[in-house]
């Protein structure tokens, strides 16, 4: 079985294409007669368009059309939610505003498209867009969550309801208690690649789309719903993506508008939003305020935790995420309550971002765990071990696999945890203070449904097909490894085709779920090929006739008897004899009901060493070790890369990233890459990644769990905890910028 073997670290299969320009991203596609679309955004956060003057723009060179709420072509499915709610079923619409792009003069958020200008070149469209002038009847925009915390509403969706185990106020009677508030600002995904879409109507009801989507099938369905056409007539292609981080998890209204306008003008139409528009049109991590109440006994046993979170959402859509969920199952604790609220503000709607709500919640929980450990005088790892649980206390069932103790131990060794002083502010190197911190992370391990097809050719090559998009983590590489493990086809003879709706259906790439879902489908399809080959090999007339199926091994195009290697048959000969030019198998794969008996999670532990300058408040992460317990690692090299990427994102979350709104105007004041500080190389030290690499016996045939999210979840807490250890100062509001650590000398 492959799950017993550690996989070799192979190179990324698309690496060469990506560094030589061979990889085609959506905006790289050029079609004959293509037109370009540029969005004009509102300059107010709430109100109504009083007038909009498009005459000058319409008369500008090369302009093919200027679309506003006054002349936007109709969209047949517009009355249904376009692109779906961000999460779960739509709640009752009467409680919310309705947002339909360019269908109303009403402005619900800053940057809301008020016009889409189409011209024969991007430059001409940009120029014409600058000529569109609007006046507004302004209203005060409610954009400051801190001022509207009291307006929180329960989202009323499964999974976001209040949770209670034991007593809600169980923490109060504990000998040692803690109450702390934590704040996460608005963060914006800001991948290198800008968002957008290229839409081409190839017939009256047939459509070709190149998009920046994390799920081609999801985009296909959203457009089918919006335009009331058969999904089969919609072809969506997204083979490569220059970073998704969650922003491509849904179809955005401006994408639907581009498709509608393309139909109206009868030309292929491309939209690439600007960097400024990346802050308002494609989602963000919501500003979230959290309170944790915690109680423990003097032996370091948790007695109660209450975790409450309030997050912003739009006035027109309820976005929810799993911010408080980790608290329910992470530690053994008799009294646990969680509460999650959202506040509808005059803001564009958030979307999941990098380890989404779980990363937000882990910052609070794991900071609080560190604060409590300090109060108890315990080492933070020791405190966690005293509250370690081998079974899921939320659902009272076993974990499918959990090797977190080993992760704590190996990470601690790698960072040199024994050099940490439990007394804060007690280590210096020159003028700099040194501190160590750690944090746990966890995220659901899923087993979604997926399909795949595998084709073994007579020349010994193998083709794998799945519609899944590889947004960067190395999905194609992992699928190659899985196929290789089942069929023994050499790695360089395996081709993976992905990112296209002409291929077998796959889920949207997100939720760290793809290796488990699509990988299982590839595993199953390849296993079907193997089974057919074995069946042919042992039938009458074959040199291996009469052998049992389980005696045979398949490697490098040869089927042989494990114990008598000279008894063999070459697969190409076997196929020739049976008149087969190809063995073509498809598989629809999903988990069985037995999965419901287990709680399936991936786990991570992050360790950091920080240096803090006590005069300037500057924090540098000087060392980082991240340990992943996510089952069998299929592709060690791309898995390590994914952890490294998560840590880089985690450093940004901890130290630098914050999108700032001037609430007087309801507008961002740092909506560009110079002023919104994504961590740069100089912020990121060498990162050591450790994979526990033990298969999960339950989740899927490979024993592999996801690791995209856990690479980031918890990291910001580890940094905050290290900063406390270095300085004795606890920062509960991210990011930890120099001003928050300043002290008068």
């Amino acid at each position: 079985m492959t799950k017993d073997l550690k996989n070799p670290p192979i190179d990324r299969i698309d690496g060469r294409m990506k560094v030589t320009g061979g990889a085609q991203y959506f905006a790289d596609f050029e079609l004959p007669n293509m037109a370009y679309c540029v969005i004009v955004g509102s300059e107010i956060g709430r109100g109504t368009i009083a007038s909009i003057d498009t005459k000058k723009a319409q008369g500008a060179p090369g302009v093919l059309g200027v679309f506003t709420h006054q002349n936007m072509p109709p969209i047949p499915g517009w009355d249904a939610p376009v692109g779906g709610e961000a999460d779960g079923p739509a709640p009752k619409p009467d409680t919310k505003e309705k947002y339909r792009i360019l269908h109303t003069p009403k402005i619900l958020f800053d940057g809301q498209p008020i016009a889409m200008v189409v011209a024969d070149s991007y430059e001409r469209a940009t120029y014409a867009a600058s000529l569109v002038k609007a006046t507004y009847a302004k209203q005060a925009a409610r954009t400051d969550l801190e001022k509207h915390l009291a307006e929180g509403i329960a989202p009323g969706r499964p999974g976001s309801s209040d949770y209670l185990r034991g007593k809600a106020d169980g923490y109060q009677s504990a000998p040692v208690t803690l109450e702390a508030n934590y704040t996460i600002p608005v963060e914006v995904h800001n991948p290198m690649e800008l968002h957008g879409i290229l839409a081409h109507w190839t017939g009256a009801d047939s459509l070709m789309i190149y998009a920046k989507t994390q799920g081609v099938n999801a985009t296909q369905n959203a457009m089918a719903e919006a335009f009331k056409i058969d999904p089969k007539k919609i072809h969506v292609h997204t083979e490569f993506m220059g970073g998704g981080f969650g922003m491509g998890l849904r179809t955005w209204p401006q994408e639907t508008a581009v498709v509608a306008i393309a139909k109206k003008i009868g030309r292929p139409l491309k939209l690439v939003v600007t960097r400024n528009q990346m802050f308002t049109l494609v989602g963000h991590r919501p500003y979230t305020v959290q309170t944790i109440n915690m109680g423990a006994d003097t032996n370091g046993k948790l007695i109660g935790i209450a975790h409450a979170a309030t997050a912003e959402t739009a006035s027109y859509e309820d976005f929810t995420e799993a911010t408080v969920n980790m608290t329910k199952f992470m530690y053994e604790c008799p009294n646990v309550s969680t509460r999650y609220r959202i506040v509808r503000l005059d803001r564009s709607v958030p979307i999941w971002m990098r380890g989404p709500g779980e990363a937000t919640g882990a910052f609070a929980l794991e900071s609080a765990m560190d604060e409590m450990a300090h109060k108890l005088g315990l080492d933070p790892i020791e405190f966690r071990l005293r509250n370690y649980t081998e079974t899921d206390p939320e659902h009272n069932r076993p974990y499918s696999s959990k090797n977190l103790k080993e992760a704590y131990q190996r990470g601690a060794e790698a960072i040199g945890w024994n050099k940490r002083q439990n007394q804060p502010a007690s280590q210096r190197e020159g003028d700099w203070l040194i501190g160590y911190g750690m944090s746990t992370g966890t995220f659901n391990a899923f087993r979604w449904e997926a399909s795949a097809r595998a084709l073994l050719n007579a020349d010994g090559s193998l083709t794998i097909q799945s519609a899944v998009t590889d947004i960067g983590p190395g999905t194609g590489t992992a699928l190659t490894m899985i196929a290789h493990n089942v069929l023994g086809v050499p790695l360089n003879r395996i081709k993976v085709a992905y990112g296209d709706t002409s291929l077998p259906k796959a889920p949207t790439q997100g939720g760290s779920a793809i290796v488990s879902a699509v990988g299982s489908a590839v595993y199953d399809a390849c296993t079907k090929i193997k089974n057919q080959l074995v069946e042919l090999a042992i039938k009458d007339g074959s040199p291996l006739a009469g052998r049992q199926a389980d005696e045979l091994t398949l490697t490098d195009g040869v089927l042989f008897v494990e114990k008598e290697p000279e008894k063999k048959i070459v697969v190409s000969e076997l196929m020739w004899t049976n008149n087969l030019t190809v063995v073509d198998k498809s598989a629809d794969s999903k988990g069985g009901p037995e999965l419901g008996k287990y709680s399936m999670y991936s786990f991570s532990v992050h360790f950091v060493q920080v240096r803090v300058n006590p005069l300037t408040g500057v924090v540098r992460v000087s060392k980082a070790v991240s340990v992943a317990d996510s089952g069998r690692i299929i592709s060690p090299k791309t898995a390590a890369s994914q952890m490294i990427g998560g840590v880089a994102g985690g450093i940004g979350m901890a130290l630098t990233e914050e999108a700032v709104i001037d609430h007087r105007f309801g507008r961002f004041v740092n909506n560009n890459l110079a002023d919104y500080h994504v961590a740069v190389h100089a912020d990121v030290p060498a990162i050591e990644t450790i994979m526990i690499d033990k298969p999960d016996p339950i989740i899927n045939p490979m024993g592999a769990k996801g690791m995209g999210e856990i690479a980031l979840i918890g990291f910001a807490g580890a940094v905050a905890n290290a900063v406390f250890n270095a300085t004795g100062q606890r920062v509960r509001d991210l990011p930890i910028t120099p001003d928050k650590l300043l002290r008068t000398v």
Partner: protein
Amino acid sequence: MNPFQYTRVTTPKAAVSALSQESGTYFLAGGTNLIDLIKREVVVPERLVDINKLPLATIEKTATGLRIGAMAKNSAVAEHELVKKHFPLLSMALNAGASAQLRNMATVGGNMMQRTRCPYFYDTSMPCNKRSPVQAGPDKGKPNGPSGCGAIDGYNRMHAIFGGSTKCIAVHPSDMCIALVALDATVNVSGPKGDRKIPFSDFHRLPGDTPQKDNTLLPGELIMSVDIPTNKFADNSHYLKVRDRASYAFALISVGVAVDMKRDVIQDIRLAMGGVAHKPWRLTEAEQFLRGKSATEANFKQAATIAMNGAKGYGENDFKLTLAPNSIIDALKTATKTA
């Protein structure tokens, strides 16, 4: 972006005469700031005069020091042997600025001419007196967006603590200029009325009632070169830049220090700060205090206290009232090797 004319000139004379012809004309050097300003419609030019072909990129030793041509690239200056050896403060400051790509494009003259990074200046829907002066004077064209100051009662975390006015509290964003003002540089300019020299400390100005004016150049004047006098600071120079991320971020506070030390006594010293004012902020009184004093933390603290005379916070930038003196102390310790 408005359609504009584009002219390329090859002699300084032609450049000066092109700029003198009409308002709405701008020199285009490296373009790393001007092009952004045009794209955001903060600057709406009628005409761009491309001066990249001017023969002004020479860096050469002179009888009294070093002359750096206005068109020398920031990266070329930072890596120049004479600069690294004799004026390391300038090299350090340049390398602390922007990114490698930007430094490869940006010129010395353009760096001096760059505009503030105040967000209200860049967003034409928000109030700004620098972009849209209350009274459109003869120097600047028509108002562009609402007037007022968005920063004084708004997001002013990055803003001035010295020399602000009721009209403007923007800061000059340059790192290079902090080194040049500390090193007593002189700016050589050429204009319709001939050539003149401007002490670097007089080149940039405080906002007062005319925040639209960043500097004291007269209409039509072209920066030709910058002169730095010979000094004895090469062994004890330091540029400290405190910022929100380790690279490619503007200074919260920066401090340029150049010291002439004999044993532990400060013979002579230059001190300047960035991120605190509408112009590179020279700390002459603190310098005066430190001259002849020992390089001790106590003296540094006192110098920092003197340097902070007259500082004023506006809310979000109050932390600079602590960060600035701390940074002065930190930079002094590093420059004098007493850290």
